Each structure stands twice: as C-alpha cells, then as structure tokens.
C-alpha cells in the first residue's frame, strides 16, 4: 500500500484500473472528463489491457457497457449532469438486464441555465431506475467504494448496477493523499467477473425478449429482492474490505457523535466533511449535536434511520436538490422511514448548496442552532441562505 496524491477523478480512474475493467465506453462532460482521460492514457500506454470505446453520446456509452457486460466483460463508464439525464432510458435497461455496471458520477447541476457546480439533482433524478447509489465524502472513499461496488454488484445474489458519486470540484478536482492498494491485494478481494448468463455462441439464448403481464411483476420483484440483498451484503463487503485494507467508510449510514445528541443533521457527500468540523466545534461548547452521513441512498437504510431516530429529539435533513412540489428527496425518504415509529423526532428539511453554493461552517452551524430550537412553528422545509432579490421591473 502506497500513498498517492489523487483528485476524486484520479481516484475513480485508478480504482477502475485496479478493478481490471475490460471494457470502458465514455463520452466527455465537465467535470467528469479527466476520469476518462486518465483511463484513455492507461489503456493507450498498455498499463490497463482494456477495450476503450470512444462513443458518440452518454446514451451510447451506457448502451455499449450493457452489451459488453452481457457478453461477459467487466465494464466502467463515468458521467455527470446532462450526460446522466441523457442516459436515463439505458439506466432502466441496466437494471432490467441485471448488469453489474459500475459508473462514476460527478454531481453537477442541470440546465438551464448552465451551471457546472455541485448539485445532487442529477443523481436524485435517477432515484427510481434501480441503480445503487453511493455518495462519497473523500477521494479515499471514492477509490475504495468503486472496488466495493464491483464486489457487491457482481455477487450472483445481487447483479445490479451502481453509481459511485462524488461532488463536482470539491472532490473531482481537489487533490488529497489516498492510500492505494497493491494490485494483488485488490485481485484477492475482487475475483474475475464470470457471469452465469452471457451471450455465448456455444450456448445460445435470448437476452431481453418479451415478457407479458404473466411474469413482468415477478421480474420486478426479483430486482426488489436483489436490492434488499445488496443492503445486507454491503455490510459484509465493507467488513471484509476493512479486514484486508484497514479502512471502513460507515456502511450505509455513517454516524458521527450521534450518541446522546439532541439534534442530528443528515447529509450526503462533501457537506458531511464540513458538518464534522461544526459538530466538533459545537460539542466543544457543550452543545450536543451529531452527524448522520447518508452514504448509500439506494438501497435506502430504513432500519438504520429508525434506530437513529428513536433516540434523537430533532433531525435536520440537508438536501442539495429539491423535488418540486414536495420535499428534498432525502427528507421525504426519512419522513417515510420514521412514520413507523411510535414516537417520532421533530423533522425539518433544509435545501442548500444548490448549483455549487458553498455550505460553509457558518451555514451548517445555523442549521444546527435552528434545529435545537425544536418545533418553533417554522416551515417544514427551509431554503438555507436564500437571497431575496426582486428585479426592479418585476412588480409582483
């Protein structure tokens, strides 16, 4: 194991290389582009003996990964924002095919207008496609999670696709020291991909086909069961990863100083890093607050959230996207999870950090202070630091 300075994108690419991916299909989009540039370099130099397909769109990138996976290859692609939106149709195909594709996604806002900075609307919009979603807090976690994702997704009891997600620029273009495992160690953790079913001329079959009302429900139910198994298996995979590599990233819900906390903030991605600093500062002043970093949004850790919620007075949920006409997506899921509890904590949603706006320690401390007041009759959803500006020409 050696330490290297890596950006989040560098960590994605190096992890794909360590996973010995066999087919890469990619299309450039800021701020994902350097991932596929690093991989192109690795393939051209011979460091990674893989097939690299320069395709004409993200839609084609994922379609090529799926057909390659169907033929028995380990595949990787990466995208962001508009590219992920363009892939939407094929995201569904991936789940239906039960293709264990791993994709790096750099969170970025959606047009219009153009905005290339961090925002979770792109991945949250793909919530119902059946992809597992891992939100990372550090570049180390990016590298480790790509490896864990292949191991989990290729398990015959799972066979589902996964997104390993990093915030634009805060991770994608920010360099930090990352422990890089030896290739042999990774090989021992991640065996060769040999699917039970593939396009094989020695044993011809039909992949896809037409499934009528008599069996389609069962097909979807099987995906639901596989997703539940992915939740259970993730803990085992992380434990084995800890045993082999000495690192652990918190399973599905990464708790930080939540014991005896009066108020807990739930956050995803890099906002959690800032929140840890704020938690420490407030704890130093005797204020009992904690952080629950939601590492895995799909499968959603219902039981873990309930276990947390039964001991906490107030939960605040920070969403870096908004489901118009309702709540932030994580807020809505947590509200649904805690409704089964006999005594529910006070819950408030906070919308912030959209389109790359900084979530500073001051902003997050404000959220904790607000939460500690408990139910003050305020709104269910608070837009953090909203600038109320009216153009002089606009009269109402």
């Amino acid at each position, binding site marked *: 194991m050696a330490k290297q300075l890596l950006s989040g994108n560098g960590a994605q690419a190096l992890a794909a290389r360590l996973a010995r991916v066999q087919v890469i*299909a990619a299309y450039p989009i800021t701020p994902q582009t350097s991932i596929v540039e690093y991989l192109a370099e690795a393939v051209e130099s011979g460091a990674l003996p893989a097939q690299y*397909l320069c395709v004409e769109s993200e839609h084609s990138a994922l*379609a090529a990964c799926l057909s390659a996976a169907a033929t028995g290859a380990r595949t990787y692609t990466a995208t962001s924002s508009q590219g992920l939106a363009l892939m939407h149709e094929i995201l569904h*195909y991936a789940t239906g095919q039960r293709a264990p594709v791993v994709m790096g996604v750099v969170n970025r806002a959606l047009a219009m207008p153009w905005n290339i900075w961090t925002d979770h609307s792109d991945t949250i919009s793909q919530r119902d496609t059946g992809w597992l979603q891992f939100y990372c807090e550090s570049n180390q976690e990016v590298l480790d999670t790509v490896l864990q994702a292949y191991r989990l997704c290729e398990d015959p009891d799972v066979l589902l696709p996964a997104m390993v997600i990093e915030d634009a620029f805060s991770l994608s273009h920010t360099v930090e020291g990352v422990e890089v495992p030896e290739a042999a160690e990774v090989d021992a953790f991640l065996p060769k991909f040999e699917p039970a079913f593939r396009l094989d*001329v020695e044993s*011809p079959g*039909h992949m896809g086909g037409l*499934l009528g009302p008599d069996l389609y429900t069962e097909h979807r139910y099987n995906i639901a069961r596989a997703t539940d198994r992915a939740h259970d298996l993730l803990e085992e995979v992380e434990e084995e990863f800890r045993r082999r590599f000495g690192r652990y990233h918190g399973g599905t819900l990464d708790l930080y100083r939540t014991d005896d906390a009066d108020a807990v903030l739930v956050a995803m991605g890099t906002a959690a890093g800032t929140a840890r600093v704020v938690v420490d500062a407030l704890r130093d002043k005797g204020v009992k607050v904690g952080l629950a970093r939601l590492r895995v949004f799909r499968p959603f850790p219902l039981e873990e959230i309930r276990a947390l919620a039964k001991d906490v007075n107030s939960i605040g949920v920070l969403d870096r996207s908004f489901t118009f006409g309702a709540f932030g997506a994580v807020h809505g899921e947590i509200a649904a999870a805690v409704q089964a509890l006999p005594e529910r904590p006070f819950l408030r949603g906070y919308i912030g950090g959209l389109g790359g706006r900084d979530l500073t320690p001051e902003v997050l401390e404000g959220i904790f202070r607000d939460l500690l007041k408990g139910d003050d009759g305020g709104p269910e959803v608070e837009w953090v630091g909203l600038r109320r500006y009216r153009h002089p020409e606009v009269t109402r």
Partner: protein
Amino acid sequence: MTRLTIPAEELMNGGHLACPGCAATLVMRYLLKGLGPKTIVAVPACCWAVMSGPFPDTALKVPLYDCAFEATGAVVSGIRAALDARGQRDITVVGFAGDGGTVDIGLQSLSGMLERGTDALYLMYDNEAYMNTGIQRSGATPLGAWTSTTPRGKGDRKKDIMGIVLAHDIPYAATVNVAFPEDFVRKVTKAKGIHGPRFFHALSPCPPGWRYPAEKSIEVARLATESRVFPLYEVEGGRVRITRRVVHPVPVAEYLGAQDRFGRLSEARASEIQATVDARWADLERREKVA
C-alpha cells in the same frame, strides 16, 4: 441438375410471430445462412423485437440480444469490445435493425459505429415505415407512399442510407433482396471475410404495410429490383459493382401498382418517381464505371 449455393443449415427456428408473408423473416434466415453459427445478433425495437417470440422462446439458434431503439450501433461496438477483451475474435457481431431504427432514431449510433471502425456487420431491413407500431412514416418511406401518418401520401423523398453509410468510407456495403437469395447469401459470405464495419441494406416488403396480398412478397420484391427502384449492388473498398444488371427494366408504375399504399398516387407524382429512379440508376452506372 444445378447445385444449391445456399447453405442448407437453418439457424432460424421454424416458429416466430411475424405476419404472414413477412420478408423480414427471410432476411434474417438468409443472413444467418451466410454467417453461420458463430454469430451474435443485437436487435433494437422493431418488428424483430417481437417476432422472436415471448420469454423464454427464441426464434434463433444464435445468441440474440434486445437493445434500445436508438442504440444498435453502440451495442454492437460493446459486444465486439467484450469479445475482443475475452479473446473471442472468430465471432461475427451483427446489428439487425429496421429502417426507423437506422435512418431516424438510430442514425447517430450507426454513424459512431462506422466511424470508430467497429468490426461488425450492420443490416437494415427496410420495410419503409414504422411497421411494428402500425405503419407510421419513417425517413425511409418513399415519396408518395400512404402510411398512417401520411394519409395523403408522403410528400418527402426517401433518405439515401447507402449514401450516408458510404460517406463513412467503410470497407463493404451492399444492397440485398430476398427475391434474389443467391446474390444475398453470396454477399453475406463475402462480407463475413472482411474486417471492419460492414453494412447491408435489405429490402423487406411488408404485406400489411405496403397493402398487397401476403403471398405476393417475393413478386413485389422482385419487381423492386427489376424496375430499378431497388438496384442490387455492392461497394467494396470504394468500388461500386452492380450485381444484377437490369437491362430491360419494367416500368416503375408496375411496381407501384402492385401495392395499394401507392393507390392515391397522381400520374405526375408517378412520373416524378420514374424520373428519379432513372437518374439514380444512371448515377449508379456512372459510379461503377469510375471505379
């Protein structure tokens, strides 16, 4: 006694969900006879996505993969890449798509596949409309043809897919017609031995869509070539070769008259079509001479 030049081996099962008289069944059958069992076929949304039958049936004795409507070109690149990664270079990868899935929604990924030099064969079976969804106009529908979205006849001309494909400077492209199976299979056999992207434009008459009796498919298909509406030729390394030289063409009106989809065609429009067919044939002969 003449020797049968078409391989006897059947790689399409005797059972499928096509309409009676569907020429697309023969297109698949002749293609697979030419390619043999070491073939993987990808099919996007089109008639053939249904024709192979519901799960767990398949009409083919080779692996069949269903893909998204607009993605065939990318999908064959993915299969080829995975086979190459696994060291399986002796397998022919086929994209088998309809005309809408090729000239309209799938044109981008087809162009990508041709440009990146994917070692695979792409066949477009051309029934000249979106037949699977109920005979809607496609970019391949010919001028004047009735469809359910051109009730008074299409006012625009058919897209020249061979011209588009050849602009990518690929090693082999050919037109094929089920009414001429020896020519069809010979071209497929030849293409099998060529590396790089290869393209086939297969005419695929459709009784319900073209509005003629189901038993007339071969007759209509033959008229298409004998009237020079659908010339048979191949382009190898940029060299054009006409493979069925139609010296005394039947009038285009005879081909049009055999199908009710052209039933409302005015005489002026029919003459316009004849003139276009004549000009295109002359152009094809000129290109053959240049080569």
